[in-house]
């Protein structure tokens, strides 16, 4: 099986034409996944499905660094130069992936998504992790075949650690401030892609909520965090 999305129909026909022994194996596998996934991917605990309801920690300290403030220099939190992410670790939900692909705005104005459910997408139109502003990383909650990299993203808790390694050799530690579930048709674009733009932040995005009749999840799970250290 591959993780390639949107092949369910064709795959179904192919499978239907296959030998009955294969059918039995597929059937057992499907049932196993079906049972395991019968409640769907984990949702953020303190939020049901209402817009912007969140689990949050009051983890917004006074801006820390600001390099040599002079005159009217703003009090930004710590930030770094640009460097691409090479590895994402979220120990609390078992995510460890270096399979990064670029995400960008498509011709219809929406964001592209990774081609497979095992890849992690980095939005190249925004800051890299560590730069001033929010770096946006997205991955699939599942494919047509089963769980994806971010299947358990909704289980992330405020205070959890998110570690990002970068191409320049630096290792960045972010802490989760908030986990929220938003209807896709009321996606908080400014909060996700801009925020307050006064410190280095991170956003982790995947799908969640009800999977509807036309094969779409209706919501997005968004994890918000900010940079606490870099080595």
């Amino acid at each position, binding site marked *: 099986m591959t993780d390639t*999305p949107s092949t*369910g129909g064709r*795959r*179904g026909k192919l*499978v239907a034409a296959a030998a009955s022994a294969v059918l*039995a194996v*597929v*059937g*057992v596998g499907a*049932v196993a996944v*079906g049972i*395991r*996934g*019968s*409640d769907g*991917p984990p949702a953020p605990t303190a939020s049901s499905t209402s817009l912007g309801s969140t689990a949050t920690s009051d983890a917004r300290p006074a801006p820390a660094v*600001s*390099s*040599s403030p*002079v005159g009217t*220099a*703003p009090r*930004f939190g710590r*930030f770094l130069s*640009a460097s691409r992410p090479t590895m994402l670790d979220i120990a609390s939900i078992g995510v460890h992936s270096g399979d990064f692909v670029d995400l960008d705005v*498509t011709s219809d*104005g*929406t964001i592209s*998504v990774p081609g497979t*459910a095992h890849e992690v997408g980095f939005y190249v*139109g*925004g800051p890299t992790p560590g*730069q*001033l*502003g929010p770096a946006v990383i*997205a991955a*699939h*909650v*599942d494919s*047509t*075949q*089963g*769980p*994806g990299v*971010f299947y358990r993203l909704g289980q992330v808790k405020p205070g959890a650690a998110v570690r990002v390694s970068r191409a320049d050799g630096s290792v960045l530690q972010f802490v989760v401030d908030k986990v929220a579930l938003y209807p*896709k048709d009321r*996606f908080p674009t*400014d909060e996700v*892609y801009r925020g307050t*733009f006064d410190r280095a932040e991170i956003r982790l995005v*995947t*799908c969640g909520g*009800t*999977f*509807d*009749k036309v094969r*779409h*999840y*209706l919501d*997005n799970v968004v994890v918000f965090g900010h940079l606490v250290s870099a080595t």
Partner: protein
Amino acid sequence: MRKRHAIMGSTLGAVTLMALGAGPALAAGSSVNANLMPNPGSGVTGSGTAMVSVSGTTITVTMAATGLLPDQPHAAHIHFGADARHECPVIADDTNKDGHLNTSEGAPAYGPVVVSLTKTGDTSPASTLAVDRFDTAPGGTLTYERGSIKVSPAVATAISAGQSVVVIHGVDYDKNGTYSGSVKSDLDPSLPTEATDPALCGALLAAPAGGMATGDGGAAGGINAGLIALGGGALVAAAGTGAIASRRSRISVR
């Protein structure tokens, strides 16, 4: 990309008229951001990010950059021209073929200055070279935040539409730690060209619209569309009808 931009540029007049007619609603609450990258031929290895939020004809600009020549004034502007390409210049814009891009050579890409990102006082194009009011990048790091910057309706519309470009000027080709050299600035012959040539540049673009399609249902609650497509008879044969019944009951949710 360029073609699309050219078309947008040519219809800017119409867009502007719409903006005037519709009032601030069109631009209200929108924001754009830029990744600031080294200008080709600048010798700069720095980087930065910028965010501009637009409310009516007032903008707020937040910006940070690293790797600039330390402790020298870095003029910074928002550029826009209806006929420009609304992007950062490429080395092919080096019309005098000296290997560097001066501010004028970049104009076909980003257009003229529409906002001077001064720390105090006037922010109009009249302050393009107000060197005593720009950030000096202590330690090579520039930080900038300023609100309540008034712009024209046309400029507000262009920024919201993703047609403007942030440029931070000031380079050090000869790596002697200061603005120097015999080549004079194309903007002000009393300054060396190092003082005004573009260092970092980034187009201010809108964020993607809407949510993300980051799931295909293979592990969704109840439905498992892919598995249903897969399954059919296989599920019936292998698992019996109980599982199917429970799955169907969940499909009807919503």
